[in-house]
């Protein structure tokens, strides 16, 4: 049965209104009935309990008349039964009397075995109330209250039901009237507001469907139906526009298909038969449309690799579409080319077909191959670079790290995928990182704004293994990437620092050396005269002690000048092959005598000998060991270790390559702060109130002039280690001989010595000393005189046994030139060069200049005696 929308709406509205009406009525009367039942329940309970209390006394005395009298109080219209029972549930009285034998409900009997509260049973037409009767006639017997019977009251609910039925009838009639009116009104409204526009829309759509004509409907409201009408009108316009566009699109597609440079062909899926091809296909394959239409690809043998065609077919079957499918195709002329194909399945008149678009990518493949080769070359180039290289994109993602970067700094792309990761790991100290990153960003921003290159910048990074490296970073921009080159300048910087230090010490040395030289001349006279004067006095003479004190003070002044000269420019060491182990042991023994510091010397017996100035090296060791004891006032351990080592070209100590001995002196003292460590070799830098500040400066100067290296490392609270490298000597055997003969000494008397010195007081002093030592002495003030006197002595047949020559004679011939002349006269001349210690290399390499020995100013009697004994022995 076909129903119109109007009929359906009418039926629906009627159904809804009726359901609402009936539901409301049901709910209303259910609530009403519950209220009535509740009320009658309360009333019945009250009546039963009242009867229970009233009948108690009568029941106790078994007074039936009184029971009946009491029971009359509940004899109302709706009471259908009132009974009084004994405690054994045997009836005593009943209202009405006809109901005397009606038994109590078994449920009540069962219930009152366990409880004594009022109990009610709701039946269809009545409610049955049961209440116990308690016996407690006197106050004092209240605690012995017990049940002596029961009352039962049954209230009829028929009256309620009748009232409800009447109400239902009235309300139902009213509700039906209301429902009928509601249905009429609602139907009218729905028809006008909803159905009419919908019917109009339906007619319009039917016209469209049946006639294909699109029409405009009236929009009569602003609600959803009005919106629907508007949308229909819009849809109608849109369909017209779309049809127009579709026609245009078909034209465009047709044109595109025809003129597309890509090969487009449509094949039947079932047998691969070509249905249509465009001009691009002809250009791609060499086949004209008339060559291929009606033939399959198998006929043309167009696929170079048939398995490619199988793969394409499988892809289309699985997904219905295949994109970027690369394969090789054979042209009509037999040549092959590579095509990139996109294909999909569609239907033409229900027949599954394949639409394929193929682009010739033969040239692109070649280009890509070329680019890959270039990239490979670039990669090789990058990996060959001695500097670290990376590049990152605009998002801060690091794209590439070259081999040098990974090897030098230890990081891989997995460790530092982004710049943020790099900053966090390479600059772990936030106080360094934040300003560095800010400065870097500012530099890059400036460069981008100005178009100028980013200036190179330096940074100290922490490698993956925790070592810090000093880098020079250059930044370039290319193709949306930022390329940075990291040059490790750690060693260069160290070398630079070292060089600065050496230059600084050399400048200071020039000044110190000049001062010390003059001092030495004066001190030579002072010390010499004092020591000479003491020879005339017995030890017990009261002046002897005074002179001894004066000599000591002068000797301390001489030590100071000596130290100054040590790091001065002219302080060249006087080298000879020595056993460094022997010097170290002597120094440790000497310095630590009486000290609470113990020493452990671990130097192998095969330690190379070294060609050094024994006095200077001893001074170095003394200074270091003295400092170590000062660092351990409460006692401790000094460890001295030595070993043979080699140094190659690439060393940061600026040492020439070769064999070296390496000495490490380690204490367990308080350590040196990083701040002080930088200045420790500076002259006059000291942390001690009693120090001169020249000890380690001298040590540095001495080791440097021995072409060695001295370095220090320290940790606060743990100790300090001085590391010294000295060139090993190739003349090990010479040392042994030197050692064996070094202490031989023979007294020589009656011999004549010539003394040349420009200072009169020195000449006078030395003359006196020579006499005391048993020598005859002649003096002269310069080289010319010395040459004359020496020549005269030879001529006289009494040549001088030795000549002590001052190296530097202001305004006259010095010792070096005079020695050449004298040796020209007498090649066996025993010449001793004297100077304020090593003013130039002649003192250090006296042998080269013909001298037999040196006499360092200032000197005393003992010095002269030992030197002459050595030269003349």
């Amino acid at each position, binding site marked *: 049965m076909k129903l119109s929308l109007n009929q359906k709406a009418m039926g629906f509205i009627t159904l809804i209104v009726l359901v609402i009406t009936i539901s409301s009525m049901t709910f209303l009367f259910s609530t009403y009935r519950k209220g009535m039942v509740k009320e009658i329940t309360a009333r019945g309970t009250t009546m039963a309990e009242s009867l229970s209390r009233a009948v108690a006394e009568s029941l*106790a005395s078994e007074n039936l008349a009184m029971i009946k009298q009491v029971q009359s109080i509940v004899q109302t219209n709706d009471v259908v039964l009132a009974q009084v029972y004994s*405690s054994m549930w*045997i*009836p005593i009285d009943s209202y009405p009397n006809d109901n005397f034998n009606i038994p109590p409900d078994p449920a009540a009997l069962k219930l009152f075995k366990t409880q004594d509260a009022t109990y009610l049973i709701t039946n269809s037409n009545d409610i049955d109330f049961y209440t116990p009767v308690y016996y407690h006639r006197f106050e004092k017997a209240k605690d012995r209250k017990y049940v002596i019977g029961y009352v039962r009251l049954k209230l009829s609910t028929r009256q309620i039901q009748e009232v409800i039925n009447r109400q239902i009838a009235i309300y139902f009639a009213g509700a039906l009237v209301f429902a009928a009116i509601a249905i009429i009104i609602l139907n009218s409204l729905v028809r006008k507001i909803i159905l009419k526009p919908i019917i109009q829309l339906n007619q319009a759509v039917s016209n469209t469907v049946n006639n294909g004509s699109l029409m405009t409907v009236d929009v009569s409201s602003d609600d959803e139906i009005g919106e629907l009408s508007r949308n229909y009108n819009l849809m109608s316009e849109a369909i017209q526009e779309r049809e127009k566009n579709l026609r245009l699109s078909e034209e465009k597609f047709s044109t595109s298909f025809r003129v597309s440079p890509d090969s487009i062909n449509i094949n039947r899926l079932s047998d691969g038969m070509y249905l249509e091809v465009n001009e691009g296909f002809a250009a791609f394959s060499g086949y004209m449309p008339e060559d291929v239409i009606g033939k399959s690809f198998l006929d043309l043998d167009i696929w170079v690799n048939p398995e490619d065609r199988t793969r394409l077919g499988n892809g289309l079957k699985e997904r219905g579409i295949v994109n970027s499918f690369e394969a090789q195709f054979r042209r009509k002329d037999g040549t092959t080319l590579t095509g990139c194909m996109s294909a999909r399945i569609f239907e033409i008149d229900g027949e599954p077909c394949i639409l394929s678009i193929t682009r010739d990518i033969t040239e692109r493949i070649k280009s890509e191959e070329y680019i890959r080769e270039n990239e490979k070359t670039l990669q090789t180039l990058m990996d060959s670079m001695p500097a670290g290289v990376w590049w990152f994109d605009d998002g801060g993602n690091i794209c590439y790290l070259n081999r040098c970067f990974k090897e030098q700094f230890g990081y891989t792309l997995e460790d530092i995928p982004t710049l943020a990761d790099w900053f966090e790991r390479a600059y772990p100290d936030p106080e360094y990182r934040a300003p560095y990153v800010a400065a870097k960003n500012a530099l890059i921003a400036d460069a981008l704004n100005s178009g100028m290159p980013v200036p190179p910048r330096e940074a100290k990074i922490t490698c993956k293994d925790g070592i810090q490296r000093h880098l020079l970073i250059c930044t370039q921009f290319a193709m949306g990437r930022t390329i940075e080159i990291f040059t490790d300048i750690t060693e260069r910087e160290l070398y630079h620092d070292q060089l600065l230090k050496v230059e600084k010490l050399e400048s200071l040395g020039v000044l110190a050396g000049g001062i010390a030289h003059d001092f030495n001349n004066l001190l030579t006279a002072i010390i010499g005269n004092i020591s000479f004067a003491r020879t005339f006095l017995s030890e017990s003479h009261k002046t002897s002690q005074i002179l001894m004190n004066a000599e000591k003070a002068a000797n301390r002044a001489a030590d100071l000048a000596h130290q100054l000269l040590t790091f001065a420019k002219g302080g060249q060491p006087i080298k000879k092959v020595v056993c460094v182990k022997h010097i170290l042991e002597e120094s440790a023994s000497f310095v630590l005598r009486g000290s609470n510091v113990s020493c452990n010397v671990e130097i192998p017996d095969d330690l190379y000998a070294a060609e050094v100035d024994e006095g200077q090296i001893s001074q170095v060791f003394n200074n270091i060991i003295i400092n170590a004891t000062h660092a351990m006032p409460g006692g401790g351990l000094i460890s001295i270790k030595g070993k043979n080592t080699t140094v190659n070209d690439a060393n940061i100590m600026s040492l020439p390559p070769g064999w070296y001995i390496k000495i490490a002196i380690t204490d367990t003292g308080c350590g040196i702060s990083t701040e002080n460590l930088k200045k420790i070799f500076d002259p006059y830098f000291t942390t001690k109130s009693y120090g001169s500040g020249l000890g380690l400066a001298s040590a540095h100067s001495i080791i440097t002039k021995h072409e060695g290296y001295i370095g220090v490392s320290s940790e606060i609270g743990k100790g300090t280690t001085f590391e010294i490298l000295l060139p090993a000597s190739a003349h090990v055997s010479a040392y042994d001989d030197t050692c064996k003969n070094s202490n031989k000494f023979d007294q020589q008397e009656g011999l004549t010595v010539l003394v040349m010195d420009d200072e009169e007081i020195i000449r006078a002093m030395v003359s006196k000393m020579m006499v005391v030592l048993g020598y005859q002495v002649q003096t002269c003030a310069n080289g010319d005189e010395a040459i004359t006197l020496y020549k005269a002595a030879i001529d006289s047949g009494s040549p001088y046994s030795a000549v002590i020559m001052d190296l530097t004679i202001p305004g006259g011939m010095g010792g070096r030139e005079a020695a050449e002349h004298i040796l020209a006269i007498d090649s066996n001349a025993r010449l001793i060069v004297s100077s304020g210690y090593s003013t130039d290399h002649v003192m250090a390499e006296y042998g080269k200049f013909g001298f037999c020995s040196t006499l360092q100013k200032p000197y005393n009697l003992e010095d002269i005696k030992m030197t002459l004994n050595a030269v003349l022995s």
Partner: protein
Amino acid sequence: MDIFRYFLVLLLLAFSVPATASEPIMASGCSISNVGYLNDLVKAYEKETGQKILIRGGGSIVGLTELGADKVDFAASCKSAGPKDSANLRFIPVAWDGLVFIVNPANPVSNIIPRDVKGIYEGKIGNWKDLGGANLPIKSYISSVTGMGGIGETLAKYFLNGKWPQTTVNSSMQASSVAIWEQLVEKTPEGFASTGFDSARTRKVKMLAVNGVAPTKATIISGKYPYKRYLYLVATKDAKPEVNKFIKFALSKKGQKLIASYGIPALAEMK
């Protein structure tokens, strides 16, 4: 000396405090006993000793049940001790009674023979005309089988050949106790009930002669009216001293004299 006198007065006062200060004794049970003698005896005892005793009816079974449940201190019973009664209970005969059959005073029937009694209780006789009365159905008031104490026991013994009356009989009407039956018979012309002589004599009912012998104190004492039985006071073996005192009083010469004075046969009067 004055102080000694004052102390002596206080001592005498303390010992002269009446028993009214003690708890009331509770009792329930046989309506025949209550109406027959117990209500009056209790009043006399209270007057003499000050001991209050609360008496409630309900029947012998109710009294024995409530005594067993410790709801009351003693019970009155016209039923003798049976095998189902607790061994802890003491059944003490206090007075004599006679089983009588009562009808409404308006009923013309005055005599009944044992066979007719049996016929009524067995349902064979249901109309008064069968006994020479009006054409009215007999309303025979009984309790339940379990609720009928002494009356059921005595009926079974003298009239029903050992069987107890049944409630299934058409003419029987259930009511809780003898006292109620008596009152119902007072108001119901066609009413009939078995009861005790001791209580029936106080009601406005007619006691039927059996085999021509009317139940009176004299005929009961003399044995002419043979359907005699004891009325008991029942207490537990560990009853309160006050209960024992009262029972002792009831059995005393004074108590028995009082019982006799109420118009019922005292123990010693029976020949």
